[in-house]
């Protein structure tokens, strides 16, 4: 006991160390385009693993991330911008005095971004968990939509459709990668805890979970708030990476993108969510060549077809769903791959 480290833990430590080394290496050695993509991937890993917690692990089909990411991004942006910068850029209406007064350093800004999202999730959980199944999906979809409309319609706080610009650029791979690593560790620990087992029980059979004495409302709310916290933090990191945010960034396409990521990776698997993020985010950059003119086998010269990559992307998506419906990882995690097959679980 105590100081003896088990073999499993050695492997975990090695993975963490390798990740930290990679983050350092990428930030210091790789070109900016690659670093930019890695930053995007790191932020989307945070979003995907947390979205997976409510959607895959707890089995509550919710379509909320764009709303919480938006809230996190706006909270962080308002805290990071100083009063002069805000006064200067509010173009449609003058900002409220309390908006000008908001100010915090990056760590607190991220913390508040997450906390604010989590509190809102808490308030929202009372109405949303009254409904089950697809109703939950449409209510949360509506929630994300309403958040965006609110952002457009309250220029005294959000600067309306112009959005916030000149946000100090704090995000780099140390931040995005570091937070992503923490988020993944936190989520894996939650999933392995008794709460995680309760979440999975709800997913597999909610009525049975209730019969076994699981307080389903409490567990669902916990999963929802944890997701919202991390989505808020991810939104804050995104704002500090792009330095410019506006309501049109947070449409339901963002949610769809995350949904595709976690289903592609294998719904319920955190490892899958990470793999899905790398494939979708990296892949959509890699597929840019499809937009360009092409020379097929030196015979046919096709003209440039901007937008083609999205057509191909959607076809790939349909094919994956048709022929690999469990996604890449199914419900398994990385560690399951090393274990001997224990029969059907």
């Amino acid at each position, binding site marked *: 006991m105590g100081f003896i480290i088990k073999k499993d833990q050695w492997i975990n430590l090695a993975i963490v160390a390798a990740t930290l080394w990679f983050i350092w290496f990428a930030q210091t050695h790789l070109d*900016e385009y690659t670093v930019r993509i890695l930053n995007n991937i790191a932020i989307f890993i945070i979003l995907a693993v947390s979205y997976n917690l409510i959607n895959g692990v707890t089995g509550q089909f919710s379509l909320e991330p764009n709303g919480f990411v938006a809230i996190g991004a706006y909270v962080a942006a308002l805290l990071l911008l100083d009063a002069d910068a805000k006064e200067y850029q509010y173009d449609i209406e003058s900002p409220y005095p309390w908006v000008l007064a908001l100010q915090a350093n990056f760590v607190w800004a991220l913390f508040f971004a997450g906390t604010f999202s989590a509190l809102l999730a808490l308030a929202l959980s009372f109405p949303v968990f009254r409904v089950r199944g697809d109703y939950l999906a449409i209510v949360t979809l509506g929630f994300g939509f309403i958040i965006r409309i609110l952002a457009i*319609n309250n220029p005294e706080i959000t600067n*309306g*459709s112009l959005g916030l610009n000149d946000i100090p650029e704090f995000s780099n791979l140390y931040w995005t990668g570091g937070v992503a690593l923490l988020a993944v560790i936190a989520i894996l620990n939650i999933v392995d805890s008794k709460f995680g087992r309760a979440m999975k029980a709800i997913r597999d059979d909610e009525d049975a979970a209730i019969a076994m004495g699981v307080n389903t409302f409490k567990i669902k709310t916990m999963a929802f708030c944890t997701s919202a916290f991390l989505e808020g933090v991810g939104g804050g990191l995104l704002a500090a990476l*792009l330095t410019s945010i506006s309501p049109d960034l947070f449409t339901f396409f963002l949610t769809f993108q995350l949904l595709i990521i976690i289903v592609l990776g294998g719904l319920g698997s955190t490892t899958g969510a990470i793999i899905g993020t790398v494939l979708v985010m990296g892949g959509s950059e890699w597929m*840019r060549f499809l937009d360009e003119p092409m020379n097929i086998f030196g015979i046919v010269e096709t003209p440039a077809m901007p937008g083609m990559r999205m057509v191909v992307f959607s076809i790939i998506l349909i094919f994956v769903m048709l022929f690999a419906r469990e996604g890449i990882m199914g419900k398994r995690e990385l560690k399951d791959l090393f274990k001997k097959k224990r029969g059907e679980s």
Partner: protein
Amino acid sequence: MKKLATLATAAALLASFSVAKEIKIGAVMPMSGPLAAYGQVTYEGIELANELQPTLKNGDTVKLVLVDNKGDKVETSTATTRLISADGVVGILGALTSSNTAAVIAVAEKKKIPVIASVATNDKLTAKREFANRVCFMDSFQGEVIANYAISQGYKTAAVISDQAQVYSLGLAKAFEKAFTKAGGKITKEVKVTSGDKDFKAVVAQVKSANPDFMFLPLYHPEASLIARQSKDIGLNKPMFSGDGVANQTMIDLGGDAIEGYMFTDFFDYSAPPTQASKDFIAAYEKKTGKKEMNSFTALGADTYNVMLAAMNKCADPTDSVCINKEIKNTKNFEGVSGVLNIDESGNASRSAVIKEFKNGKMVYKTTVNP
């Protein structure tokens, strides 16, 4: 010494003849997604301008690299980083809307790569930025032109219908309201719509009950044409005025009879090309596309490329982006496709605006307003 100089010149000449380089200019445009319509039209101009002038004075060829940003900010930032760090572009054209252009500038500014925006008219876009430039006029100028025109026609009250989802629309509405009130007019009705809306019956009914002298609609053509039609349907026949967002053939197709007499400001007049460059460009455009009309977004797209190219030509080293930026800001009396351009220290273009109206399914020139 003299001999040495000659030798150097000869060597330089020889070098420029023998190894013509390929220099890249990047374009970030929404070619898919909700803004695709405008991105595609603008890129037509950039692409054709590149086909017409594919080389620099010194013989280097200019290659355009287009990246699609889907109208999305994450993609815009990634695309801009890719253009600068992977493709090594010397300048960037784009990215249509003011809010996405702000994301391009945020990345390019740090890398000292000049950006030329085609239609991003928001006043604050170039402020405090060294490498941000544009070939369009700003909202404040356009708003003033329209307000002054309305006052000169004896209109005292105005209703403003703006699109809350478009920075362009809000900025222009604000500029107009400021100028109109200052000149003694009164805004009697303000309504906000959202782009993508199709049903404006409730909106026009409200405007009708407010009974203004004049309606100002700083919108893009899909919404403006529908409002014009639905106004006529309920017998609301007030003079209507828009900014440059409606200046295209689609507006005519969509609006039909309902936009007879509808006025708008524009960057250039297609039927009366302002410069030789525009005549040549329009001829080439008609030949290439077979279309009989050219959008002003296309003309402005072409001018972003032309201004960039001219600035590169003025630099001893056409890959020196700091010099290119300096020369862009030094653009004086430039004969562009969309008209005569001057770009100042802050990167803003000062250029004339034209007022036009729709008549018998055509855009008819009324007057030119100089800054």
